[in-house]
């Protein structure tokens, strides 16, 4: 198909005696929507944290477009083009929505303290463009008229959208979404799913998605990687994953293999 944009090679992250991510290999193709699923505590978010420089993996290597990510600080990684959202929303809660998105553009603006204090013509122009861009992004995620709201006063769904707008403001090549539909109702979830697909199609952004909602995962992923106890136990297209005995075992325990062939979500309901 296309090039590999991100490749994780035998990545291992330990916390004391616990191996949260154990020798995981994942390759993400450019322009794909790649899901990472697994039961709670499987190491999905830890894997994201390794990618964004919050944790440093003990072993293995992470290559993004040929650059190694291991040992880089978070603020250096985003410059390469990896942005993320968080499982529990981490907006700049007491700032306006607009400011949140403007902060997202930080790496693309150049104003230093002297330039900001004296407002050179170039800085003024830059700031104007940034403001236009921020408003455009807010409109894009459907918050066009809420730029002046304080982030924490927005509704839950709007906060999730704002987080995505903030991540998009850094013009990423790869967007990591950590349970973006958690806490949404089915209608909102459906909208979000369409929105993610649009993101990929319109902005050519590769998306890596951690998600528990199987409808979303099966609906939009091209490839799914399944983690369990820090190890990758399966990888493949949604169809393949649905029929994978190991995956079903991880989710439902031993003895459930008879349900092979059914949608895990349906299986879960029956159980």
């Amino acid at each position, binding site marked *: 198909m296309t090039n590999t944009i991100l490749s994780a090679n035998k990545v291992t992250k330990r916390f004391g005696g616990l191996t949260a991510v154990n020798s995981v290999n994942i390759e993400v193709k450019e322009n794909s929507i790649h899901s990472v699923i697994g039961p709670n505590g499987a190491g999905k978010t830890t894997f994201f944290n390794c990618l*964004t*420089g*919050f944790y440093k993996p003990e072993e293995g290597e992470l290559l993004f477009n040929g650059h190694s990510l291991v040992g880089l*600080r*978070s*603020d250096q*990684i*985003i*410059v390469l083009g990896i*942005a*993320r959202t*968080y499982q529990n929303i*981490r*907006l*700049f*809660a*007491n*700032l306006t929505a607009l*400011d949140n998105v*403007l*902060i*997202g553009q*930080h*790496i693309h*603006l*150049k*104003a*230093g*303290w002297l330039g*900001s*204090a*004296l*407002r050179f013509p170039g*800085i003024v122009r830059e*700031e104007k463009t*940034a403001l236009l861009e921020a408003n455009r992004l807010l409109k894009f995620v459907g918050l066009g008229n809420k730029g002046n709201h*304080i982030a*924490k*006063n927005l509704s839950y769904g709007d906060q999730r959208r704002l987080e995505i707008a*903030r991540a998009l403001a*850094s013009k990423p090549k790869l967007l990591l979404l950590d349970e973006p539909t958690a806490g949404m109702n089915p209608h909102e979830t459906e909208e979000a799913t369409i929105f993610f697909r649009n993101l990929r199609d319109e902005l050519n952004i590769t998306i890596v998605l951690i998600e528990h909602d199987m409808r979303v995962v099966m609906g939009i992923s091209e490839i799914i990687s399944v983690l369990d106890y820090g190890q990758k136990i399966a990888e493949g297209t949604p169809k393949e994953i649905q029929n994978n005995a190991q995956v079903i075992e991880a989710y439902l325990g031993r003895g459930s293999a008879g349900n092979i062939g059914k949608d895990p979500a349906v299986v879960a309901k029956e159980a």
Partner: protein
Amino acid sequence: MEKYRTAITIGLVGAAITLLFGGWSMILVGTVVGAITGLNYGQHSAKRGALDKAREVLLPALIGNIIMGLGGTLYTFVVVPLTGKSLNYDQPLKLGTGRVPLDSIAVFIIGLAAGIAIGVAVAALIAYLQGLPENVRRVAFIASLIVFLFGLPFFDQVTGLDWIAAIITIQIFILLALGLNIVVGYAGLLDLGYAAFFAIGAYTTGLLSSPQIDIYWNFWLVIWVAAAMAAFAGLVLGAPTLPLRGDYLAIVTLGFGEIIPVVFRNLISVKLVEPFTRICFVGCDPKVDVVRWCIYACQGALDLTAGEKGINPIGRPMIPFTDELLFSSRSYLPWYFLVFGLIVLSIFFIRRLRNSRIGRAWMAIREDELAASQMGIDPVKTKLLAFSMGATFSGFAGAFYGSYISAIFPSVFDFSVSVIILCMVILGGLGNMVGVIIGGILIMGTDRLFLPQIATLLKDFMRHSVLGNVSNPVLKDFLEISVDPNQMRLAIFGLVLVIMMVVRPEGLVPSEERRAELHEGEEEHGDAATEAAA
């Protein structure tokens, strides 16, 4: 009655001040009471038209100012006799070189009438401005503020109110508070040793323009060097400590604030010799005749700071083509306008910084350091910038302070100064410059104007009306010496701070964000209550 509650409160605060100063102060306080009343009622008025707003504010302003006038009345007819002053003592009006002698009754009548009249007029004007379109209002508002601030020292001079020295100190502390607001309010770094940078600015000025080591640089150059030195000190302190968070940073800055005055106290015999090479040429005894390269002060140890005695006198600013003695210790006006200019410049630049990429990065770090760093903001660099930026303003203030007082001592920069500046920022409203300025005026005004005045009045009152009637010598001693509000100032500030934290944690004039942060729960509660009531 509900409608006039705010006006009455404002009037009562005004009355508390006129009760202490009486006479001419009523004009000044009346103006301020009028302005605040006008602002408050103009903003909350349901009426849209400018004239309607002005008309509506007339009655509340009149009530507020009459209450304010009661304070002055009490001063004239109760406080003055009780403290043993005669009702006929002169309060001359200085006009140019001439003096118009007035007795205190005349001063009272003029002050009361003018205070109330001007107060109501100002209230109406301010309310009127509120009704104008946004851009006109802004300009008109700033213009009236400038007129007031320009007129203030002249009014002070003409009436002999003698507040100007205190006002200049207040200004210097406002400058300091504005700088600290960058560090604490914007970047969210608790700095408990801010006075250290103030000291560095002042001592740099002292060293570079005094007879201490015979360097007499121009003030306009020194003030930049002082600011740069303070900024540099900020970098040196910040680089290793800013990766620390919250409490730990506070402790380190606290230590720094304690160390710096001690360092200045002890720099009284300085000689720098490099410690590594020890040269001994042929034929000498290596135990005795070693020569080490001298780096600084080779002719003999230098006294850099004169320890507890302090550096004195320090050079003063000069402006080309004007009187050399323009900035002297008895002429306050040039100083007033110089700091005034510094403050305006500072507000101008800090505002710009706040609304820029840099300011947003500061606030992002304050809100969520992890998310900020994953948005590409280098936390250490950003915090370092905030830290040294705050230090720069402190350095400016220090340079100015040293030159203004013309003598600096290590004890001026102790921990309580850091705390008082922090109190201003917190009292006024973290992260909001208007709030910080108001906090500065309130705290330093209390410290430098009201408490000393209360102390004087109390002393006179004791001597004149109380002590004669007390026979118990112990009680008499206690009343004479220990009842001194000046000694209780830190206790009073502590009390105010505790009360503020309980009653209004976001400060008097909070920034939008803080208000949202601290009162969200209550608002929801309030909403629920109204809904339930409906």
